[in-house]
């Protein structure tokens, strides 16, 4: 039984201790769930799946941008998680972080395997000398179409999805984990196995690159001032 280390003025445990205690309890619960699963308890594995499958699927979809790929990769990631459950250690991080880390490794493997395909695809589809084909079309400003809010939102989502696919995998995964999966810097550092400073830098560069992809006129301004400052 975990006991809070200190009490506040009213004789109740301090908030920080409660947080720490609940974190420890969560770790113990997760390790227990994994142990049950390793002992052959199918219900425990089902519980883990129900708890994390949606997050895995969303990460796969945002990373690949394709529903079919996301479904296949989610299934593959789940199988990989099931086979590697014995390597989970609750004291090294949460189950969610560990699962995202395995999924992310799978996504990077997938990216590397299909890098050549994508390169040849883009070469096949690019018209000769069409530099614009590298960028998604610029979004119209919100003010130009106030009466089409639904269409506007849909268009923004589509363009954002396309722009995400154009980021390098390092920047893409950092932005997805931070801005779409709501992980904090420490968790992202654990998933990506890089220092927090690197995580912050990648997220910052990823956001700026996304903004420039969505607003191509910013590129010109960046190029203009590039030499000067």
């Amino acid at each position, binding site marked *: 039984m975990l006991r809070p280390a200190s009490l506040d003025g009213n004789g109740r445990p301090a908030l920080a201790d409660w947080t720490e205690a609940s974190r420890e309890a969560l770790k113990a619960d997760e390790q227990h769930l994994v142990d049950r699963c390793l002992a052959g308890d*199918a219900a425990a*594995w089902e519980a883990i*799946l129900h708890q994390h499958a949606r997050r895995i699927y969303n990460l796969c979809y945002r990373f690949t941008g394709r529903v079919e790929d996301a479904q296949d990769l989610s299934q593959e990631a*789940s199988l990989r998680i099931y086979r590697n459950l014995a390597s989970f250690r609750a004291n090294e991080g949460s189950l969610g972080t560990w699962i995202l880390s395995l999924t992310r490794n799978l996504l990077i493997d997938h990216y590397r395997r299909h890098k050549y395909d994508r390169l040849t695809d883009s070469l096949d589809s690019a018209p000769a000398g069409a530099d614009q084909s590298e960028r998604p079309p610029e979004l119209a400003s919100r003010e130009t179409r106030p009466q089409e809010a639904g269409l506007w939102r849909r268009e923004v*989502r589509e363009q954002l999805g396309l722009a995400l696919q154009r980021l390098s995998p390092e920047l893409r995964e950092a932005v997805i984990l931070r801005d779409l999966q709501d992980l904090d810097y420490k968790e992202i550092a654990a998933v990506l196995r890089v220092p927090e400073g690197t995580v912050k830098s990648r997220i*910052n560069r990823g*956001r700026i690159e996304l903004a420039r992809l969505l607003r191509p006129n910013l590129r010109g301004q960046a190029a203009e001032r590039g030499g000067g400052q």
Partner: protein
Amino acid sequence: MIEPLNCSQFEERLSDFEEGALAPELAAAMRAHAQACGACAALRQAVRETATWLAELPELELPPALIPAVLARTTGRRELVSWRATLRSLGGIFWQPRVVMGFGMAVFALAVLLNAAGVNLRQLRWRDLTPRQLALSAERGMHRGWARGAKYYNDLKVVYEIQAALQAVQRNQPAPPAAAPNHRNRNQDPNAVFGYAREFASAAPASFSGRAAARPRANFAIESDLS
């Protein structure tokens, strides 16, 4: 006192600045640079917008088949799914604009076909759906369609004109040629039109041809003219 920032330094600290993670002095230097540099101010605005759009991206629903597929390949256990959940997932698949539009078009096409076949759904009774009744109504529809087609053909102005011209030719030329009309030279042979009429009549289904023979019709007067 912090020195004024350049554009690269501004970019490097932009996310921290937007998240309020910078020391007050550095945040003041960022604000000062954004006021002085239009490009960096525009970049800051674009990054803010992008962050808003990212936050608005919806979380996707899990495909219903994913967990059962994983369970089948791991523990081999099949997830128990209630019939309500199954119906709900099916509803999600079918309740899409293109599926609804396709279904509407199919209903419309069926209604047109039933209307053309003379089927009135309001007067439809169970005994009309027996195989014998269905066969009879199909045959009736076929005869009706054939008769309409033949009538339409005979009512064509061009056919009528050709018939009239041929009758005039026959009146002026009492001895008809003995040879059968050559199909290759139909256009030159005035009797070729009768050849078409014969083919048209012989193309009718056997049952109809029998009835046509039993019930002489005005539509086939062209045949009687031949004889």
